[in-house]
C-alpha cells in the first residue's frame, strides 16, 4: 500500500496537498472473469416478497433496453402482472455475471432467467413463501417465455422510460451525496503508451481559485503509462480554473516508435514485410492475375457516447462504494480491490444506467480516479471526464487497412484473398500490457480483429489472414468489433465482383450464399426496398442504390439497401435505408427495430463521418466538432423488417452494422462510378 496523507482542515477552508511521491502500481492487469450464466445463478436475479417481485437485472442497461426485454421474460414465465415486477440494476453484492458485451443479453440470459422464474412460479403455487427455491431444469419447449405469445413479441413501455422523459436520476453522474466534491485527474498531452508524469505545478495559484480543495498526487493507477495529478474542488467548473492555474509541466518520454499511425496501418507495407500470421480461412488461392484487387483503409473511430464516463466514489470506514456507468461492475470491483489493496468485500460497485457505451465502457478508468480521490480526501468524489479526456484517454476502434483480391470464372468467384492489418481489439492495449500482448499475439491472435473476416459466401479457394500492431493510442472493442470494418471491405469487394461479372449485385450475392437464413434477409430487404424499381432522376444529383448483407457471430443475419444522392461537389446524402433482420425469436420487436435503426445510423457514420484525428501518436480531437457523429439532418427515413423465426432468441445489438456500411458504399459506387477506398468519404473524392 502506498503512503497516504489524509486531508487536513486548514484555516479558510479545506486546503491540502495530498500524497507525496507516486505509488508503484502493479504491472499485472486484472483480467475480466466471464462466467456463463446458468439457471441456478439466475435465481439470484428474481425474488418474491409480499406479493411483489424484484428482478435484479443481470445485465448493464445502456440503451439496448434489456431491462424491458428481461422483464417481459420474467413476467411471461411467472405469469405476473407487469406492474408487480420491480426492476433494479445490479450491484456487485449479487453473484458475478459476465460483462454486458457481444449482443449476448437475450441470447444467453433469457433462458436461465425463464428457468428460474418457472421454478419460482411453481414454488409459489405449491405454497412456499420464504426460503430458497431449487431449479429443476425443464425443456425449453415448456418455458412460456421462450415462445411467441402473450408478452413475448410485444413492446410494452420501456423500463425507465418514464424516468428518462421526466429527467429522474438514473446515470452515474446523477448521484449526489452529502459533502460530495468534484475531482479530475490531469494527464500529459501525449500518447498514453509513453511514460509521462507531472513534473511541476503552481500550487499557490491553484489554491487561489475559489472552490479549490486539494491537489492529489496519489491519484490512482496510470492510464497506460500516463501518471496523472489529481485535483479536487467544491464545484465542478472550478476544476477547469484550477487546471489552468496549476500551469502544469510534464515529464514526457517519447516519441512513440509508431507515432505515424497511418504508416503503421498500411496493408501494402505490411505484406511487403512478409506473411500475415493469423489465419481465418486457409484455402490457398491459385496463382495468377486477379479480377478484383481492392485496398480499403478505415480510420480510427471514437465510440462517441453522449455521456462522458462518470463515477462517484465514497470511502468510509475502510469500505469503498462506487456508482458507475459500466458494462462490467464486477471487473470494476476486482480492479479497484487490486489497485487499492482492498479486500474484495470492501468494495461495492453499483451499476447505473449507461449513457451510451458501445463497447467503450468495459474497463476501469474514471472509477479508479474517483476512488483514489475519495480515499485521499475522505469525502465522496464525483469524476466525469471531459469530452477531450474521452478522446485522449479512452480506447477506440482501431484503424484497419484491407486488401481483397478475387478471381472470377463464369460469373462465380473462384478465388478470394483478404489481408488485413489493424490493432488489438479483444486483447485491448487499454488493459493488456505489451509483454502480455506478445503472448496473446503469438498464441491467440485477436478474435476481435478477426470477427467477420470469414466472408459469409461460398468463395472457392478462400484465404483470409491478418496481423495487429500495438499503436500509441489505445484500441479496443467498438460496436461489432472487427465485424463492421471487415464487412464494409468484403461487401465492397463483392459488389465490385458483381460488377465485373456483369451480374446484378443481389443475384450475384444470392448465387454465392449457402445459408438460407442469410439468403432470406437479402431477399426480404430487396422486396421491401423494391430493389428492381429504378430511381427517378433528380436534376443536378447523381443517384444510386446499393445492397449488402452479412452474418454476425455465426448466428444473426441482416441485409440492407441504401439510396444515396451525390451532388456535383461530392456531398453525399443517404436518402433512404431499409433493413431486414433475423435474430431468432424476437422478445420485443420495437426494441429490436431500435437496435437495427441505431446500427444503420452507425453504418452511415462509418461511411460519412467516423474519424478520430491524431498527430504525433496522440489524439488531437477535443470536441464533437473534431470527431463528428451523424446528425439528424444526415439521417434518412429507415424501414426495418424483422423475420419471424422459430430459432431461439439471438443477438441484435450489433448485427445490422455488418450490412449498412456496405449498402451505403455500394450505393455511392452506383451513383458515381467510384469505389470508396478510404473512409470517411471526403467531398473531394466524389466531385462530378
Amino acid at each position, binding site marked *: 500500500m502506498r503512503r497516504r496523507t489524509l486531508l487536513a482542515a486548514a484555516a479558510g477552508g479545506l486546503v491540502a496537498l495530498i500524497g507525496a511521491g507516486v505509488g508503484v502500481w502493479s504491472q499485472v492487469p486484472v483480467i475480466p472473469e466471464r462466467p456463463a450464466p446458468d439457471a441456478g445463478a439466475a435465481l439470484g436475479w428474481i425474488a418474491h416478497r409480499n406479493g411483489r417481485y424484484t428482478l435484479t437485472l443481470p445485465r448493464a442497461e*445502456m440503451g439496448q433496453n434489456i431491462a424491458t426485454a428481461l422483464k417481459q421474460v420474467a413476467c411471461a414465465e411467472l405469469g405476473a402482472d407487469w406492474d408487480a415486477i420491480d426492476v433494479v440494476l445490479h450491484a456487485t453484492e449479487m453473484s458475478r455475471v459476465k460483462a454486458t458485451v457481444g449482443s449476448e443479453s437475450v441470447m444467453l440470459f433469457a433462458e436461465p432467467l425463464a428457468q428460474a422464474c418457472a421454478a419460482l412460479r411453481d414454488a409459489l403455487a405449491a405454497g412456499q413463501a420464504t426460503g430458497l427455491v431449487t431449479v429443476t431444469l425443464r425443456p425449453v419447449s415448456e418455458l412460456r417465455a421462450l415462445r411467441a405469445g402473450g408478452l413475448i413479441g410485444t413492446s410494452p413501455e420501456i423500463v425507465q422510460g418514464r424516468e428518462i422523459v421526466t429527467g429522474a436520476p438514473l446515470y452515474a453522474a446523477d448521484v449526489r451525496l452529502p459533502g460530495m466534491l468534484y475531482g479530475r485527474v490531469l494527464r500529459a498531452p501525449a500518447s498514453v503508451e509513453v511514460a509521462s508524469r507531472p513534473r511541476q505545478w503552481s500550487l499557490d495559484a491553484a489554491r487561489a481559485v475559489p472552490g479549490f480543495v486539494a491537489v492529489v498526487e496519489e491519484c490512482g493507477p496510470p492510464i497506460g503509462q500516463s501518471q496523472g495529478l489529481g485535483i479536487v474542488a467544491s464545484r465542478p467548473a472550478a476544476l477547469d480554473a484550477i487546471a489552468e492555474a496549476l500551469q502544469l509541466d510534464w515529464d514526457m518520454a517519447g516519441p512513440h516508435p509508431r507515432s505515424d499511425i497511418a504508416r503503421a496501418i498500411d496493408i501494402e507495407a505490411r505484406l511487403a514485410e512478409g506473411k500475415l500470421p493469423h489465419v481465418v480461412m486457409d484455402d490457398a488461392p491459385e496463382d495468377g492475375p486477379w479480377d478484383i484487387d481492392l485496398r480499403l483503409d478505415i480510420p480510427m473511430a471514437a465510440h462517441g457516447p453522449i455521456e462522458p464516463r462518470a463515477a462517484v466514489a465514497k470511502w468510509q470506514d475502510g469500505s469503498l462504494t462506487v456508482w458507475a456507468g459500466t458494462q462490467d461492475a464486477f471487473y470494476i470491483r476486482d480492479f479497484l480491490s487490486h489497485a487499492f489493496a482492498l479486500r474484495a468485500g470492501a468494495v461495492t460497485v453499483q451499476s447505473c444506467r449507461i449513457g451510451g457505451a458501445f463497447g467503450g465502457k468495459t474497463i476501469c478508468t474514471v472509477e479508479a480516479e474517483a476512488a483514489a480521490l475519495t480515499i485521499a480526501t475522505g469525502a465522496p468524489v464525483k469524476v466525469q471526464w471531459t469530452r477531450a479526456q474521452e478522446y485522449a484517454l479512452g480506447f477506440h476502434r482501431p484503424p484497419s487497412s484491407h486488401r481483397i483480391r478475387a478471381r472470377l470464372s463464369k460469373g462465380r468467384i473462384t478465388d478470394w484473398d483478404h489481408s488485413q492489418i489493424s490493432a488489438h481489439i479483444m486483447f485491448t492495449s487499454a488493459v493488456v500490457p505489451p509483454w502480455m500482448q506478445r503472448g496473446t499475439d503469438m498464441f491467440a491472435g485477436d478474435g476481435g480483429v478477426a470477427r467477420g473476416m470469414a466472408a459469409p459466401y461460398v468463395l472457392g479457394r478462400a484465404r483470409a489472414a491478418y496481423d495487429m500492431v500495438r499503436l500509441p493510442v489505445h484500441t479496443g472493442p467498438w460496436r461489432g468489433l472487427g465485424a463492421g470494418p471487415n464487412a464494409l471491405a468484403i461487401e465492397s469487394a463483392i459488389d465490385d465482383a458483381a460488377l465485373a461479372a456483369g451480374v446484378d449485385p443481389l443475384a450475384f450475392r444470392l448465387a454465392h450464399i449457402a445459408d438460407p437464413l442469410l439468403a432470406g434477409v437479402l431477399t426480404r430487404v430487396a422486396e421491401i426496398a423494391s430493389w428492381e424499381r429504378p430511381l427517378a432522376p433528380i436534376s443536378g444529383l447523381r443517384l444510386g442504390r446499393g445492397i449488402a448483407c452479412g452474418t454476425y457471430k455465426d448466428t444473426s443475419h441482416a441485409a440492407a439497401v441504401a439510396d444515396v444522392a451525390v451532388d456535383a461537389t461530392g456531398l453525399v446524402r443517404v436518402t433512404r435505408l431499409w433493413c431486414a433482420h433475423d435474430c431468432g425469436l424476437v422478445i420485443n420487436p420495437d426494441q429490436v427495430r431500435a437496435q437495427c435503426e441505431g446500427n444503420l445510423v452507425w453504418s452511415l457514420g462509418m461511411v460519412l463521418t467516423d474519424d478520430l484525428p491524431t498527430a504525433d501518436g496522440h489524439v488531437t480531437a477535443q470536441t464533437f466538432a473534431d470527431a463528428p457523429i451523424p446528425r439528424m439532418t444526415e439521417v434518412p427515413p429507415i424501414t426495418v423488417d424483422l423475420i419471424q423465426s422459430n430459432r431461439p432468441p439471438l443477438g441484435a445489438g450489433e448485427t445490422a452494422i455488418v450490412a449498412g456500411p456496405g449498402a451505403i458504399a455500394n450505393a455511392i459506387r452506383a451513383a458515381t462510378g467510384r469505389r470508396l477506398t478510404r473512409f470517411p468519404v471526403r467531398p473531394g473524392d466524389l466531385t462530378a
Partner: protein
Amino acid sequence: MLFTLNGESRDIPADWADEPLLFLLSEAFGLTGSKFGCGVGICGACTVIIDGAAARACITRASDVDGLSVRTIEGLATGDVLHPVQQAWLDLGVPQCGYCQAGQIMAAVALLEQVPDPTPDDIDGAMDGNLCRCGTYPRIRAAISRAAEQA
C-alpha cells in the same frame, strides 16, 4: 440574484454564480435531468428553455439567468400527467440510452411552442444541434410530429 426555475423563484447562491447554469441546476439544485455531454454547446444534452427559447445550459453562466425564467425537463409534467412531447416519446419508444433525451425533449418543446405545426424541415432545422449517438433521430422526428398532432 433571483431567477424563475420551473415556475418558482429561486436564489442563485453567490458561490455558484460563475458556474455554468448546467451545474447550478444539476449539482446545486439536484435537477439532474439536464446532462453534461460536451461542455461547449455542441451536443445539446444540456438544453433547457430560457425565456421561451432553447438554450445550452453548459455555456450559460448561472449569473446570466438573473431575472430570467428557466424551464427544465423536471418542470414539464403536471403531476403524473406527462407533457404531450414526453408522452409521444414514451409512446414511440424513442429513448435508447436516454442520456441526450432530456435535451432533445426540451428542444422539441421549444420548437413546438414557437411553431405548433412544424414541417419536416422545421423539425430537422430545430433539432440538428442535438446529437444522439444511439441513432434515435427517426423516432425523434416521429414523436415531434405526433406531439404536434395531439396538441
